[in-house]
């Protein structure tokens, strides 16, 4: 039955200095199937699929495409052999138009002259197929992240590939966009295209896939037939232990009348006329579709963006932070949505990351108190269970979940009172997710307050005490815990 496999990865091993990212992983893809690839952060999923295009050169192992063996791939070879990949990190060029991005590396041309008209026409067709309205001439840099991702998908489809590999394609998409993506996936499957689908969202896996391959710590664990498997089993395989419940219960600690933060008619940064109150000790959820302007709102609170109008009252006093520094000194903290770009400093150590906001405080005459610095970091490591051999490890080498813990630890060390979590579990595996939820509860238990932005409905409803929904930069509704309901929230989120 060997001929049934369109793509085989055989005994792939990848070593980085000091890390073995993949240990002897093998995997086969059948024609016309959707194969899900799952595993915790850092399990090696992205590394594995990158070997298919030569973005990662395996230390040993073979790649077999349609019976042809390769030890060394290159992006060109991959394309020639019908493999298209949507990478986890954005892969567009912001200075080029949508159409040109679709044909990046393989433009339609006459001789050496590119045929922009033809590319625009093709692009229009591809966008129509995906049910998205993008002018092919707009620069990609001017599009929202959701649209940028849709372009990635359109690009992969245009390549007319036999194998389509998608690394967490749904992360930046709205529900509607995810739907149209699924439709396309179905269509491709019917045409006999094979798909490798990577996601941390298990419901997607169950909806789409035929088989599931589980990786853990760079090792192949097991292959499951989707319809015969169970979520608990899957989670057990992924994290190596069983996880009982995702949203741990929490006592209601907040007081109805103690307001820690109040916004009055706040406008700016794309938002208009925002009025809201955050009670001390609660988790206030901010719901909405991607692009609703939630990140923009918390940027204003955190002093990372300017508000043009309105008043912000924090602990009874009007505040007007002009920089994150001022906000931090007031006791406000932000765990940003783009962890790698905005959250952690990848090139420096865990210890330094944790102490970054408080260095001035633990210094005397500008000399850092090294003992204190280490103590604080150690305390964080212990409390948050950060998995690392040493605190001197640079953060780049940590898994996504552990990176997120470092960020949270940083704000705990800074003793912030109001913590804003912007998509805190995006791209984080189930195990780490549960730990972060537990951490959030501990934060609340210690008398602090959380403002939570999440596009995952389950998470938002599971964690929040109250939810405020935004759409297009305005507040469109507010729900108490008793009224939480997916449909109501969706309705508010799509209200204009």
């Amino acid at each position, binding site marked *: 039955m060997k001929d049934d496999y369109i793509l085989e990865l055989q005994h792939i091993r990848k070593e980085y200095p000091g890390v073995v990212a993949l240990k002897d992983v093998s995997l086969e893809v059948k024609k016309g199937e959707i194969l899900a690839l799952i595993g915790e952060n850092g399990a090696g999923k992205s590394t594995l699929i990158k070997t298919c*295009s030569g*973005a990662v050169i395996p230390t040993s192992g073979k790649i077999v495409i349609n019976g042809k063996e390769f030890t060394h791939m290159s*992006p*060109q070879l*991959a*394309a020639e052999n019908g493999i298209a*990949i949507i*990478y986890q*990190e*954005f*892969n*567009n*060029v*912001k*200075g*080029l138009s949508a159409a*040109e991005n679709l044909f*990046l*590396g*393989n*433009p339609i*041309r006459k001789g*050496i*002259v*590119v045929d922009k008209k033809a590319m625009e026409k093709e692009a229009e067709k591809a966008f129509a197929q995906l049910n998205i309205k993008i002018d092919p001439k707009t620069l990609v840099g001017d599009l929202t992240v959701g649209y940028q991702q849709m372009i990635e998908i359109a690009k992969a489809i245009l390549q007319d590939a036999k194998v389509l590999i998608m690394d967490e394609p749904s992360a930046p998409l709205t529900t509607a966009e995810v739907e149209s993506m699924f439709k396309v996936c179905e269509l491709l499957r019917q045409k006999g295209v094979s798909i490798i689908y990577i996601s941390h969202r298990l419901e997607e896996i169950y909806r789409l896939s035929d088989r599931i391959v589980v990786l853990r710590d760079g090792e192949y664990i097991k292959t499951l037939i989707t319809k015969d498997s169970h979520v608990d089993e899957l989670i057990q395989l992924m994290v190596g232990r069983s996880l009982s419940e995702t949203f741990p219960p929490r006592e209601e600690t907040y007081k109805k009348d103690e307001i820690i933060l109040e916004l009055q008619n706040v406008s700016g940064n794309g938002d208009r006329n925002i009025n809201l109150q955050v009670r001390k000790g609660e988790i206030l959820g901010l719901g909405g579709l991607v692009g609703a302007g939630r990140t923009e709102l918390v940027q204003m609170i955190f002093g990372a*963006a*300017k508000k043009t109008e309105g008043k912000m009252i924090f602990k009874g006093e009007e505040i007007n932070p002009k920089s994150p520094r001022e906000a931090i000194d007031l006791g406000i903290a932000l765990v940003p949505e783009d962890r790698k770009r905005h959250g952690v400093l990848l090139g420096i150590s865990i210890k330094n990351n944790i102490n970054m906001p408080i260095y001035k405080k633990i210094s005397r005459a500008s000399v850092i108190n090294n003992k204190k610095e280490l103590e604080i970091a150690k305390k964080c490591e212990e409390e948050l269970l950060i998995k690392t051999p040493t605190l001197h490890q640079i953060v780049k080498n940590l898994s996504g979940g552990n990176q997120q813990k470092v960020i949270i630890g940083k704000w705990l060390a800074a003793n912030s009172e109001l913590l804003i979590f912007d998509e805190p579990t995006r791209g984080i595996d189930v195990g780490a997710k549960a730990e972060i939820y537990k951490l959030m509860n501990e934060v609340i238990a210690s008398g602090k307050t959380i403002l939570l932005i999440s596009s995952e409905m389950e998470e938002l409803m599971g964690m929040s005490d109250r939810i405020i929904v935004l759409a297009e930069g305005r507040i469109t509704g507010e729900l108490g815990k008793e009224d939480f309901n997916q449909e109501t929230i969706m309705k508010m989120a799509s209200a204009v």
Partner: protein
Amino acid sequence: MKSTIIKILKEKAIWMVFIILFVAFSLANPRFLSSSNLFTIARQVSMLGIASIGMTFVILISGIDLSTGSIITFVNIVAAFLMVNMGFGMVTAIILSLILSILVGVLNGCLISTIGIPAIIATFATQIVFEGASYLISGGTPIYGFDERFKVIGQGYLGPVPVPVIIMIVCFAIGSFILNKSYFGRYFYAVGGNEEASKLSGIRVGVTKYLVYALSGLFAGLAGIVMLSRTNSAQPTAGLGYEFDVITCVVLGGVSITGGYGKMSNVIAGVLIIGILTNGMVLMNVSTYMQMVVKGIVLVLAVGFDSLQKKRALT
């Protein structure tokens, strides 16, 4: 409507600066506007213009080429040496020295792309090596005494138009064509905008870099030949420090130093601004020292205006 005007104003801001300077100098000195002076300016900027094309490519891919000046010198010396000391014909000498300038560019490409040395260091190293080499070849003294016909390139006229200006215009046309029409020109934007994505999309980033630095070498070489013909004597200091004039033009022309954005048409404005500034200040008797100060300030104002706008747009 209003926003379209604003957009045009922003995109063409550098042409505004040009027009303002142009009008100011015309008012300050009537000679400035004479057709002979305008041709003089065009002739004077021709070398700067030619070299700026290659530098535009380089900066677009978020590189930098500090060896431009010494390639100009090197080509001057080599072409002259071939013609005078080795008795080569004019055409052969030009072709050989242009090939050499391409090779210097290829060497830059190799150091940057294959070995991975940061562009600013790699091209600085080639700069001093080829500056040294030019001295070694020439022994430090000028080389002169070329065929009379050689003068045509830098000093001749085609009708009323100076030949170097025609060469510059042709080069700009080629440069625009490469950037806007050719597929590899589009690759320059891609590589400058997102190198990793380009690589994963199947663009041969390494090859693209070699090509860009080779083109930068070639255009520098061409500028060198025009300069040699204009001066009619090869000096081992011919291109000294020229790279910074060229970089200035390109950056004035709005090409982002971090790569990925830029237009050939605006670079032309950058070149012309430097040209009329130099010419106008001499017409107005500004002293050498003062000229330096003025140029620095104009650079800050022109780039600063643009930077402030971009910064505002961000937050």
